[in-house]
C-alpha cells in the first residue's frame, strides 16, 4: 500500500490545523467583518445584507432571523454608535449560541467505547483514524473496530488507515453482522489491554428505519458487555451539508443518544454554519473538527476560539 495521501501536500505536520481553521474562518465570516467595516450606517440595507451573509454561511433561515432580530432589538434599545459595536454584539450572541469552551471526551478506564455514526460519505472512517491518532498521542491505547461491513471496501479502508496511524484494527468479513464484530472488538480490547475502543459504523441515512434499528442493536450489544457504554456516541457531520445536518443530528440523537459532534471537511470553503442551528436547538457540543486530508488535520473544537476567530482580521 502506498501512502499517496502524503504525497499531495508537503507541509510539516501539525502546522495545518490552526492555519486551515484560520482560512475557513476568513472565508466564513471575513465577509461579515468587511461588511461591518464598510458600512457606517445601520440602515435597512445593512440588516438585509447581514441576513444574506448569515444564510449564505448555512446558518439557516431561523437561526439567522433570531440573530438578526436580537441584534436589531439591542440596536433599538441602545443605538450602536458604530459598526464595531454592532459586530461585538453579534459576536457575543453567536458565542452564546455555541456554549462554553472546549468539551472533552468522557473516556473512563479500564475500557471506554466510542461509537461513531453518521450518514454516508460524511467522513466517518477518516475522522476515526484521526481521532485514534489523537488519542494515541495523548497516551491512550485505542483499538479500531471495522463495524461498516456493508459498504464495498470499507473494511479495507479502515485497515489502511489503521496501518497509517499505527493503531490495530479488529475486522470480520464483508456482510458480517456489525454487532458480532463489535462483540469481538470488546473481547479483543480486553485481551490486548486497549483502553479505548472506537467503533466505525456503516453510513446510513437517518430516514432508514431498519438501519437505525441496526445501530440501536450495536449499542445494546455494547451495553451488555459494558453497562455504561458507549461512553461517547459521536455524530460526524460534513461541513458542506446544509440544513439537513440539523435533521440528521435530531434523528441520530433520538435513536442512539448522540453525545457530541465531529465537524468534518471544514477545510473546504464550506461554512459549516449549520452548527449554530444545532447548538441552538439541540445543545449538542461540537467536540472535534476535521480540517484537511492529512491525519494531523484534526483538533478539539474550541467554541471560544472559534467564535472569536469568526471576526478575526
Amino acid at each position, binding site marked *: *500500500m*502506498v501512502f*499517496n*495521501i502524503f504525497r*499531495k*501536500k508537503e507541509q510539516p505536520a501539525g502546522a495545518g490545523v490552526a492555519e486551515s481553521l484560520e482560512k475557513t474562518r476568513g472565508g466564513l465570516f471575513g465577509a461579515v467583518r468587511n461588511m461591518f467595516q464598510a458600512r457606517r450606517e445601520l440602515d435597512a440595507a445593512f440588516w438585509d445584507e447581514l441576513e*444574506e451573509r448569515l*444564510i*449564505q*454561511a*448555512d446558518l*439557516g*433561515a*431561523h437561526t439567522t432571523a433570531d440573530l438578526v432580530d436580537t441584534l436589531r432589538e439591542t440596536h433599538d434599545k441602545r443605538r450602536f454608535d458604530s459598526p464595531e459595536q454592532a459586530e461585538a454584539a453579534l459576536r457575543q450572541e453567536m458565542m452564546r449560541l455555541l456554549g462554553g469552551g472546549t468539551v472533552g471526551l468522557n473516556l473512563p478506564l479500564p475500557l471506554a467505547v466510542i461509537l461513531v455514526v453518521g*450518514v*454516508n*460519505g*460524511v*467522513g466517518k472512517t477518516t475522522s476515526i483514524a484521526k481521532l485514534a491518532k489523537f488519542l494515541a498521542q495523548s497516551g491512550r491505547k485505542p483499538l479500531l473496530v471495522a463495524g461498516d461491513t*456493508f*459498504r*464495498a*471496501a*470499507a473494511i*479495507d*479502508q479502515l*485497515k*489502511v*488507515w489503521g496501518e*497509517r496511524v499505527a493503531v490495530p484494527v479488529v475486522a470480520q468479513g*464483508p456482510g458480517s453482522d456489525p454487532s458480532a464484530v463489535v462483540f469481538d472488538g470488546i473481547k479483543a480490547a480486553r485481551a490486548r489491554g486497549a483502553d479505548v475502543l472506537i467503533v466505525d459504523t456503516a453510513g446510513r*441515512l*437517518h*430516514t*432508514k*428505519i*431498519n438501519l437505525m*434499528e441496526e445501530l440501536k442493536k450495536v449499542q445494546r450489544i455494547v451495553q451488555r458487555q459494558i453497562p455504561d457504554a458507549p461512553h461517547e456516541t459521536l455524530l460526524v457531520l*460534513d461541513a*458542506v*451539508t*446544509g*440544513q*439537513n*445536518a*440539523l*435533521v440528521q443530528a435530531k434523528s441520530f440523537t433520538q435513536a442512539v443518544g448522540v453525545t457530541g459532534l465531529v465537524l468534518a*471537511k471544514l*477545510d*473546504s*470553503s*464550506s*461554512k459549516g*454554519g*449549520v452548527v449554530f442551528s444545532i447548538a441552538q436547538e439541540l445543545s449538542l457540543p461540537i467536540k472535534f473538527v476535521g480540517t484537511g486530508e492529512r491525519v494531523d488535520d484534526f483538533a478539539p473544537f474550541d467554541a471560544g476560539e472559534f467564535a472569536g476567530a469568526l471576526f478575526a482580521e
Partner: protein
Amino acid sequence: MFEALTDRLQGVFKDMRSKGRLAEEDIDEALREVRLALLEADVNFKVARDFIRRVKERATSLEVLESLTPAQQVLRIVDEELVATLGGEPGRIDWTGKTPAPVMLVGLNGAGKTTSAAKLALTLRKLGQRPLLVACDTYRPAAVAQLETLGRQIGAEVYEEGTHASPVDIARRSVEYGREHGYSINIIDTAGRLQIDERMMDELVQIKAAIQPTEVLLVANAMTGQEAVSVAQQFHEQVGLTGLILTQMDGDARGGAALSIRAVTGVPLKFLGMGEKIEALQAYYPDRLASRILGMGDMLTLIEQTQELYDQEEAEKLQKKLVKGQFTLDDFLGQLQQIKRMGSLSSIMDMIPGLSQLTRRPEFAAALDEKQFKRVEAMILSMTVKERQNPVILDGSRRRRIARGSGTSVHEVNQLLNQFRQMQGMMKQIGRGKIPKGIAGLMG
C-alpha cells in the same frame, strides 16, 4: 422542526385555498413562506430571491387576483417557474462521436462518485451499451477495491492500475484498453477533491485534455448547503461540466441544491441517485422533481420503476385476476417480492401523493419495517400450494402448523389472513373501477 419543502408548500397553499379569494398581501405572505421553505431546503439565497421575484410578478397580475381559483393559479405559477428553473428537458448521456465514449465523474469527497459510477454502468447497460469502469481515484484508501467490488456485484469489468500510476495515465490507457476490448463507454471514477484545491483541479483538467470526454458529470449530494453553487461554479469554470448527478435523494433532503446549481450554471441535471442498492440510478425529469417539491408526489417515476421490474405478461395476468377477484396469497407474495426489489417501502411511499407525510408518522414507520415483510413472507411460504390458492381451508390445526413453521404465532397468522381478505375485497372494487373510500381519502 425543519419540514420538507413539500410539506411546507402544501401548508401554505392549504391556508390560501380556504380563503378562496386573494389580496396582494396574501400573495406576499404566501411567498414569504415559500421563500423560507426554499431556504430551509438549501436553495441558494440569491436563487430563492430571484425565484420569488419572478413568481410574484406573475402572481400579482389582475388575472390571478380576480380568478375564482387564485390559490390554484399561484400554485400553477410556482410549479411552472420551478420547472423552468430546473431546466426544460430530460438529461441524456452523450456517447456519440467516439468509441469508447469517455464519461468523467467529478465532485467533492463523499459525494457518492464511486457508487454513482457503478449505478451509471448498470443504467447504460440497460440502454444496450457496453460500459467499462475506470478506477482513477488513487488517493482515497481502498477506493480502487470499492470500485472493483461494485463492478463484481453488477458484472462489469473494472480497469485499474492500482494506486501508483498517475490518474491521467490511467484514464488515457483505459481508453486504449476500451477500444481494443470493444467497450462503448468508459466511466471514469475520479478522486474526490475540493473545488479550491488548485493542484487537484488541475489534475482533472489534464485528464479531460488527455481523453476528451463526451460528458463531464458533477456528482453532488442532495444535502449540500449554500456552498453547492460555488462548488458547481468552480468545477464548471475549470473543467467544463456537461451535467449533474444528484445523490442521496432517498433521504429527506429535498434537493434544493439541484435548483441552485441548475439556476447558476445552467448545467442540466441528468440522474438522481436513490438508495444504496446498485440498481437505483433514476433518470431525472424536471417536471417530476418540481412536482415532488410541490407535494404532488412522483407517480411517474414510481410507474416507470414498476414497469421496469414487472414482467409485462405477468402484469397482464395479474390484472385479469384482479378483475375477476381471483387474487391469491401466491400473488400477494409475488407482490411483496416485487416491492422488495424496488427498494424500501418508505422510499416508494414518498413518491405517492399524500403518502409522503404518512411515512414519517411513527405508527406507519413501524408498519414499514422490513422485518414485518419477512414474517409475512415466512408465513405464506409455510403454506401448501393448495392453502395459498384457497385460504378458506385454513382451519385451526393448519394455522397452528403455519405458525410453527414460520416461527410466528397463530394470532399473527389470523391477522395476515384478515388483512388479505380485506385486500381481496378492495382489489375487487378496484377491478370494477371503483376506488375504495379509504384509499381515495389518502390520495386526496
